[in-house]
């Protein structure tokens, strides 16, 4: 009897293990819940609607950034040059690129807070570690705009590594200018260009 019970227990554990894994949020469910969460907060927060950079970056830091893999984004944007970069340089590139993206796009997101989002059904196999989650922004009086997220499975859950708007990849648009800087001034040249751009933006944002 004891043996049967222990067998049952171990069987239960065997079955339980995959169940725990499956409870990890699916990529499409994650996109949907984060989007709805963020939209809800934006609609309710008067400071955000008035364009308060402080409030917006607090929201983005807390709710959006944890779901992005900036290292992978940076690697894809830098392309061939990434391998020439030392670990420290890679960290610095990722940090500066992340800063630039947040500074540029955080404000823009607010203007979409009153649009309707449609979440498309996800096509994926259970073993896939990379998926494209598709959504659409319905604009009054215009054609819908496709907003897709390239996501990868990591140990910390699903992470976004590219955002594709109407067929245009956020990461890919940086490839040519990044390659140019690496060619002209090496990895440090690119780090420098990113840092300068961030400084200029910070100065501009402090003015307003």
């Amino acid at each position: 009897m004891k043996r049967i019970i222990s067998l049952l227990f171990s069987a239960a554990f065997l079955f339980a293990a995959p169940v725990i894994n499956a409870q990890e949020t699916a990529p499409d469910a994650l996109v949907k819940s984060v989007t709805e969460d963020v939209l809800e907060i934006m609609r309710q927060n008067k400071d955000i609607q008035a364009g308060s950079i402080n409030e917006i970056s607090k929201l983005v830091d807390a709710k959006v950034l944890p779901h992005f893999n900036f290292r992978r984004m940076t690697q894809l944007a830098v392309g061939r040059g990434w391998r020439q970069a030392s670990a420290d340089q890679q960290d610095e590139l990722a940090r500066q690129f992340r800063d630039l993206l947040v500074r540029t796009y955080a404000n823009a997101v607010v203007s979409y807070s009153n649009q309707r989002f449609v979440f498309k059904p996800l096509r994926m196999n259970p073993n896939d570690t990379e998926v494209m989650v598709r959504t659409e922004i319905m604009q009054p009086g215009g054609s819908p705009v496709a907003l897709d997220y390239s996501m990868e499975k990591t140990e910390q859950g699903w992470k976004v590594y590219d955002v594709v708007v109407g067929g245009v990849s956020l990461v890919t648009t940086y490839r040519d200018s990044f390659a140019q800087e690496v060619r002209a001034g090496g990895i440090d040249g690119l780090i420098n260009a990113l840092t300068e751009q961030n400084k200029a933006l910070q100065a501009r944002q402090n003015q307003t």
Partner: protein
Amino acid sequence: MNIRNCLIFLSALCLFSGCATQRVPIAADPLEGFNRTMFTVHEGLDTVLLKPVAQGYDAVVPAPVKRGVGNFFENFRDVARSGNAFLQGKGRQGVTGLGRILINSTLGLFGLFDVASEMGLQKGTEDFGQTLAIWGVPSGPYLFVPLIGPSGGRDIVGFTVDAYANPLWYLTKDEIAVRNSLIGIYTMHTRANLLPADRILSEATWDKYAHIRSAYLQRRAAITGRPTLDDYDDLDDPPDGE
């Protein structure tokens, strides 16, 4: 300005815009030096004329009027969209386009209101550049055309054909002053619509030209389903050291 002066002017601009810089060659943009010069010309025109006028229009004209202006022009442009949908074998989208024109021209008071969209008849995205792409015409070199923006060998032909397919062109055949005013209003309206994107673009990068080019090439590849010549072959680099 005669042609020789024009050339001298352009080569002077070339000096300022850094044509001499060694750049990573982009297969889809063999005319980069020339295009960058055109981009500088465009930015100059934009700074002194287009943008200030668009900003004024944006500030003075109330939103509902702006929407009406946009709808009015879009209704005429639906003719070319619908025609191109048929030429591309998308019969359903073509019929939807015809339905949109019929409804918006009547119920929508000569196109001032986009009633059709509210009824669920979605505006198409077809143009003659796409039609040519689907017929197998290659994209040709990337082109930046002042006042028109990013284009290409194939797409600039498409742009011209679509412009001639606009009924407004024929309706104003004998009223050149009206036609010119309409072109002016349309340009101003279109530029005003781009004002928010403008800000993002100037913040996002130190090389606007490369950013616009990449976005344009990607967009055209996406809507024609035909990748343009590009050198993104290393996109699938295996992740390393992570």
